[in-house]
């Protein structure tokens, strides 16, 4: 698991919340933890990106949107996590330290043929994008993408999943 898994991050935020004396924030996170452990029917999303700030804040937003989120900062971590958590949707940065995102996506897709993939990249790597799309990824987003649009996209995908 990543250095900053959702859990550790939440703990970290709790701590930060205490220090700043922002109880509201702390309470909200406590509530989220409770929500995360109690509700089971949520869509599992795996976010793979080596950019920590984005990854963890994005995870936070997705949790608020009602998803169950796991995060990984490298390809190896992502594969381990995928084995354990059986994600239904994967956000995959193409450029990762070690194994590239396209390879990781192929492995995850092999494990769970039903999984939905959204590739993410900061600059044009046409060959890898093409390959990922050929291997069943739904689309490729170019950083820095617009958050509301991505949330809309995710909703659309998961609605298809549910129906």
């Amino acid at each position, binding site marked *: 698991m990543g250095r900053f898994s959702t859990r550790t991050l939440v703990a970290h935020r709790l701590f930060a919340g205490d220090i700043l004396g922002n109880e509201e924030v702390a309470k909200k996170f406590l509530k989220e933890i409770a929500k995360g452990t109690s509700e089971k029917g949520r869509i599992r999303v795996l976010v793979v990106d080596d950019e920590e700030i984005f990854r963890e804040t994005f995870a936070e937003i997705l949790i608020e949107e009602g998803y169950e989120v796991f995060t990984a900062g490298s390809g190896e971590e992502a594969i381990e996590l995928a084995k354990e958590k059986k994600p239904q949707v994967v956000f995959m940065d193409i450029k990762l330290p070690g194994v590239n995102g396209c390879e990781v996506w192929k492995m995850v897709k092999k494990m769970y043929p039903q999984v939905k993939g959204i590739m993410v990249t900061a*600059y044009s790597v046409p060959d890898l994008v093409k390959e990922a799309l050929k291997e069943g990824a739904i689309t490729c987003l170019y950083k820095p993408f617009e958050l509301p649009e991505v949330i809309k996209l995710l909703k659309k995908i998961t609605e298809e999943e549910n129906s």
Partner: protein
Amino acid sequence: MIVVIWQYFDLKAYQETIQKTLFKETSNLLTVIKRDTWDYMETARQYQIGVIFKEYRQIERIKVAYLLDAQGKVAYASHPENLSPYGFEEQIKEISLTGKDYHRFKPEGVSPFLAFLGKEEPYFSSLTPLENKPSCQRCHSSGKTVGYLGLELDARREAEVFTSRLKRILILSAPFYLFAIINIFLFLYINVFHPLEIVRQGMLKVKEGQLGLKVKTKSIDEIGQIAHTFNLMSENLKILTEELVKKEKMAVLGQMAAGVAHEVRNLLLGIKTSTYYLRRKLESHPELTRTVGDIDTGVRRAERTVTNVLQYTQPGELSREAVNINQIIEEILSSAEKERLFTRVEIKKNLGLSLPLLTLDSERLRQSIYNLVLNAAQAMPKGGQLSISTRIVANQIADKSKFVEIRIEDTGEGITEENLKNVFNPFFTTKAKGIGLGLTIVKENIEKHQGKIKVESTVGKGTTFIIQLPVG
């Protein structure tokens, strides 16, 4: 040249005349000697022959006169000291082969009169056979000939006349030859050597790095061709080198830009995600929402700069699709209106109805129009009007091809004539913000779509950018 040929033939003709005269003279003398010889032979006064041959010594022109017997042995000779030491076998052989008299200039060669060139003195040699007539048979028993009569005539005088004439001609025409030589040299110098030297100097300069250098020569066609080819080569070399340097520069810049872009875009996404998160949390604090909006504006500007640099350094291929231009403009304007920069800008739209869909790279077109809209707003810091219009235009003059025209007009400060020439040049900017790539990329993008872009501006009144994109 003509003069030289004329002089050569003139001399040759003169030489022939001398030869003919000599031949005639020799023949006449021989006839006389022959008659004398016959006389003494027929009257059986052979002893007189020796006497008469000695008398011939007194004739100045005679080098030697001699009488050979049937075997070719010398019987009598006027000047025994002048007799050929090699005998007369060759001459006799020739007579028996041809059946004619022997007449020959000696020494044999190009011209016997050019005596001053060789060591031998020129002379004319003749040999005639004496027939075995019935009257001879009293003493000479058999054979066709009883003997041979030979005469060698001195031609020194003729040679002297000939050479003096030659010398005179040469001396008289010397200035002319000199003049001709100088003329030829001058002609060669002006038309060949000098231009060649100019080309050579040009080559040296090109070697030293002055690519694109041109040489000017006034010369005959062939050399002119060389100079012309040299100019073409020099120019091409310059273009190729510049292209190469640009390519290399672009490769390095591209690599750098890609690295920076990757880093910056990742960070920007982090910031964007954070502001999005903040915005949701700050719903109850509208005064802070505006600040978050400013962060977003900054992020968007950084995003644009990175995209501009990346596109300038890595042009890439177009990914075309059917595009509704009006829709793109609407999207750009609705997003721009939210920015603080546009708060004092009044936007006026006049979008043409039923424009055809164009097959374009929508992202590039969006970026181009956005750059122009942003430019217009930046030109009006105190506010003003931004008009944007689209329409379909047909080419009236040529093939009546149709294109879509987009006009983006501001009422800003305008561009000076001097700057107007440079607006599309990379890294040219008059603004404190930006790096001067926006319009360069707009132009590149439009031209990649076989379109045209024009700019018109009046200082103090405003600027208009006109884009024309071909239909179909």
